[in-house]
């Protein structure tokens, strides 16, 4: 290996740093484990009853799907505030399909939900990518518009569990090897998305675009197409989440999923996805989602009144981004100083 020209000294430093950075997800995971352990010590049922274990996995599954989609969009330096409304619309569509098309196969409902979500995502993406206007404004607009359409469509109707087939509702709680189906679906999506984002050209281009849009343009990356794809993926995942929401909760009114956008963005941010793109992983976002909802469930057990939950969530978000910032500052200072060393 005579061509190996990498200087050993900075490599060790940087390598250590790299590991430290990769620990960004690890630290969130540790926080999650800590919450679970402490809560379980306080009340063993939190983990060791079969319902407790199931809920630990089941509760965050739907948010994981949405957070993964949101993470992809945020990594490309956009944001999708319309996910709550998208989820509401697809969940309602799910119920309507069962009501209006008796005997419709469940798989068709799933595909319809995903496709509908993708179309809603496409609308966002097209407005952002072609009109070149900030995603924040566009998706704030579609947050209202989609919710309005939902209310117009649903009126004061509510879809009840009895309107949907039993075997569909069962999907919301079925377990395989004591792992809920919803969790399995969320995991499959997560693994697929994580693999794609890390190991394919397309995935890396999302990071590149989010990291430096001007450079992406200079490189000749297909920026417009990628932004579209990110929004469509986010919409489709949210659509899938909407179908699963219907299966899990059984009751859908026109307000289903409202406020979800902030949870999804919060999950991504807690999980280390930089709000201005370019870094973070869908894994982090998923762990962020689990942490968010697990804390929600753990607080009452730990004796914190559930009214304080949101405050804890807020503190968590701020803590996460401040920590992120401090780590980044430390890193850039180290990189700067390493330059002095290599100069002399």
């Amino acid at each position, binding site marked *: 290996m005579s061509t190996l020209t990498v200087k050993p000294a900075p490599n060790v430093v940087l390598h250590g740093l790299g590991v430290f950075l990769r620990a960004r997800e690890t630290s969130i995971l540790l926080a999650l484990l800590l919450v679970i352990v402490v809560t379980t010590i306080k009340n063993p*049922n939190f983990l060791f009853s079969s319902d407790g274990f199931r809920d630990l996995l089941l509760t965050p599954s739907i948010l994981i799907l949405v957070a993964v989609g949101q993470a992809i969009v945020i990594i490309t330096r956009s944001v999708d505030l319309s996910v709550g409304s998208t989820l509401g619309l697809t969940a309602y569509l799910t119920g309507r399909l069962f009501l209006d098309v008796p005997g419709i196969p469940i798989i068709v409902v799933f595909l319809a939900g995903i496709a509908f979500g993708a179309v809603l995502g496409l609308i966002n993406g097209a407005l952002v990518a072609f009109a070149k206007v900030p995603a924040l404004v566009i998706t704030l607009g579609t947050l209202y518009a989609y919710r309005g359409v939902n*209310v117009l469509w649903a009126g*004061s109707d509510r879809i009840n569990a*009895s309107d949907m087939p039993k075997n569909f509702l069962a999907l919301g709680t079925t377990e395989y090897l004591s792992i809920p189906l919803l969790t399995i679906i969320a995991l499959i999506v997560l693994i697929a998305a994580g693999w794609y984002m890390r190991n394919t050209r397309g995935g890396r281009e999302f990071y590149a675009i989010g990291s430096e849009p001007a450079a992406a343009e200079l490189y000749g990356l297909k920026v417009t197409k990628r932004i579209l794809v990110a929004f469509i993926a986010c919409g489709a995942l949210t659509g899938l989440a909407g179908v699963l929401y219907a299966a899990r*909760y059984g009751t859908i*009114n*026109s307000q289903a999923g409202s406020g979800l956008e902030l949870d999804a963005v919060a999950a991504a941010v807690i999980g280390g996805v930089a709000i201005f793109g370019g870094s973070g992983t869908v894994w982090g976002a998923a762990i962020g989602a689990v942490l968010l909802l697990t804390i929600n*469930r753990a607080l*009452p057990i730990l004796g914190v009144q*559930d009214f304080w939950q949101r405050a804890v969530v807020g503190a968590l978000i701020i803590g996460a981004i401040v920590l992120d910032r401090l780590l980044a500052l430390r890193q850039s200072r180290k990189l700067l100083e390493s330059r002095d060393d290599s100069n002399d």
Partner: protein
Amino acid sequence: ATGCSSGGGDSTDGGDSDNLAITFLPKNLGNAYFDTSDKGGEKAIGEFGGTYAEVGPSEATPDAQVSYINTLTQQGVGAIVVSANDPKAIGGALNEARDAGVKVVTYDSDTDTEYRDVFINQADSAGIAKVQVDLIAEQIGDAGEIAILSASANATNQNAWIELMKSDIADNHPNITVVETVYGDDDDQTSFDKTAALLQTHPNLKGIVSPTTVGIAAAARYLQTSEYKGKVALTGLGTPNQMRDYVTDGTVTAFALWNPADLGYLAAYAAKALIEGDITGAESDTFEAGDLGTYTVGADGVVLLGDPYEFNKDNIADFDF
């Protein structure tokens, strides 16, 4: 009964005939319970030839209701039939409406007495509390821990019932302890998740009482597929259509409710009586309420619908609402 032209409701567009435009303003739209009650109101208004309308916010907050009350005042409707999200907060707006000649009937959830003309009480609070305590006591063998899954923390009627249930339990069921009260905000998902949390937090829980139709249905759905099915009793106030499956499969043994359609029906007739000046809301005024017969206004302008009804496996098939 007095003459029919003496009512204060000479609105701008009413001419000399009485303005029988009656608008229902439930706590929120998209709520099966209010859908049923307001249909009852629509039926009554159809019978006496008034104009029915229903408006309401999508979320059950008092500030959202105020905007609707204001709009109805501007429109100059004959009467507003409202279920209050807060006993005081919407009071000012209601009084402005009344100053403009609009009659105000509260139903399901009351405001303070000075803000409305009459309140249609679905069942008196003591009766509602008692039927639920009796049901849960019977189902858990009159001993053990129970929890309450309520609607929003500010819901007037729920809070009143919970207080009465607690004192009833303290007085008459010494072996039952209420370990916690949680709030599902009349939101299906929240109620569902809160049920899950309750069961984990309190491993010895024997029963859950949910005095709200959204809550009991969500809790039943959770129980149905959980390990606690059949072990933790669930009762409270629910509608037969939402609860039918759970009663049939044994998740829930029995629950109670008045007939919400009758509640809306009675409220509409009370509104008509107010508009036409048959009653003013004073004690012992009487009015006709169509199929339901004659009702008398009680103290503080309260009209009592009747006793709550108990639903179980044997009778649930007879109802459709």
